[in-house]
């Protein structure tokens, strides 16, 4: 799993996607798979109830378990539900992009993800750093920031800094706010000031960047974990890996999984997605038209009032 990369990649993705897409949706999509799974992966005790998965890696990324949250199909289903309920293409697309970014990022650890679930339960991984949820929260943090995982986070921090314009006030108000109806809603309904909105927008960058250093220093000076920047490190963590069958079977599983995913996505699009997309487009156009009407009426009323005032004088 990745730590700060999930926050940081949202900023880069929002900048490079050429169509209208919600930043908040990308951010939420990047968090989504772990939001609903990670709490239980480490185990918890509450109100006399105790839950500690025997194999956190299998539970988190496999089936049976909550591994389906890290599959491409899950992102598609969630996006369709959002498109259906909220009629917002920017949010549906943002959630899908954010979710898929999380899934592809998690391929980098040693356990990987079930990309083609439910058509295949095969995990795919490049094993760049060791998966360490079985070590508990702190052990996981220590292992991650003692391995190439920390370098991966730094890579994304560098990517955001290279795209530094995404953090400017101007970019936020001209691009992020303009592409997402939620920000004006925050302002209108919650009476949020511009300073607060901007702080909220930048907060996840600052949090992502700072947690890299906080956890890194903690691992070095408090936990005193040895740094190991070799592929698949750190060496001192209990190894758990994605299990691969013989190459022929792997190819067959992958082909069937990819074909099943592609076919089901096509069917979903033809049966549901296309209609919902069209409906959302119409809804957005109607909304824009209503806004334009209101915009044309308000100045007229205003100038009418002014004229009346002038006559009265």
């Amino acid at each position, binding site marked *: 799993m990745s730590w700060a990369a999930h*926050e940081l990649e949202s900023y880069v993705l929002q900048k490079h996607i050429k169509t*209208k897409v919600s930043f908040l949706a990308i951010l939420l999509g990047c968090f989504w798979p772990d*939001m609903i799974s990670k709490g239980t992966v480490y185990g918890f005790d509450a109100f006399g109830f105790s839950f500690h998965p025997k194999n956190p890696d299998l539970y988190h990324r496999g089936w049976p378990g909550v591994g389906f949250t890290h599959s491409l199909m899950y992102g598609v289903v969630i996006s369709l539900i959002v498109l259906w*309920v*909220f*009629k*917002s*293409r920017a*949010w549906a697309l943002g959630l899908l992009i954010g979710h898929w970014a999380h899934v592809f990022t998690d391929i980098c650890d040693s356990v990987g993800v079930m990309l083609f679930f439910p058509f295949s339960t095969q995990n795919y991984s490049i094993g760049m750093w060791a998966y360490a949820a079985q070590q508990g*929260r*702190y052990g996981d*943090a220590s292992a991650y920031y003692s391995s190439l995982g920390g370098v991966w986070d730094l890579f994304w921090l560098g990517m955001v800094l290279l795209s530094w314009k995404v953090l400017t006030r*101007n970019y936020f*108000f*001209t691009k992020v*706010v*303009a592409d997402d*109806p939620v*920000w*004006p*809603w925050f*302002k*209108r*309904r919650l*009476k949020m*000031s*511009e*300073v*607060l*909105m901007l*702080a*909220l927008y*930048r*907060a996840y960058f*600052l*949090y992502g*960047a*700072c*947690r890299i*250093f*906080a*956890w890194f*220093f*903690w691992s070095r000076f*408090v936990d005193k974990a040895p740094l190991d920047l070799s592929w698949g490190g750190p060496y001192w963590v209990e190894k758990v890996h994605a299990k691969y069958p013989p190459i022929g079977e792997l190819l067959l599983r992958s082909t069937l999984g990819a074909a099943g995913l592609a076919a089901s996505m096509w069917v979903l699009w033809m049966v549901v997605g296309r209609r919902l997309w069209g409906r959302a487009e119409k809804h*957005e*156009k109607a*909304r*824009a038209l*209503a*806004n*334009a*009407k*209101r*915009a044309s009426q*308000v*100045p007229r009323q*205003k*100038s009418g009032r*002014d004229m009346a005032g002038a006559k009265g004088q």
Partner: protein
Amino acid sequence: MAAESEQADESGGLPTPDSSPAAAGADDASNTDDPDGTTREGNTAGTDTAGADDVDHADGTDNASEVPELSDTADTSDDGEEIRPEDVREGVVDLVAYAVGAVALILLGYFTQRDVLTWTRGPFTVVVIIMAVHWVGRRVQARREKVGGAR
């Protein structure tokens, strides 16, 4: 119409999107009567603060009532040109706020770990620090203006 749109916002949970910047601007214009602020909404849509101010001048609307709403810490000055030094001051306060936020988060994270370093508590802490520094900045500025006025 405004009521209609607000109903739509409530029914949809999320407000429905405005598909173009022009529409966003239109939405902002529709909030002109909102006591929360006219030109501030315009700024949110990406219009230049000074530009929004110019528009108000051109319309002949009551600048004295609208200019203070240009920004959260807007001066009471009626002249749009006089906002610039304040923008600079705002920028400096912003920089200090984010620097303090970053240092505080790293230190708090180092010493308290998950008491601060979670996806909810971390950003919340940052936002609170930034807003607190801005609040202090406004207080300091107000005091300076008071002292300057007394002299």
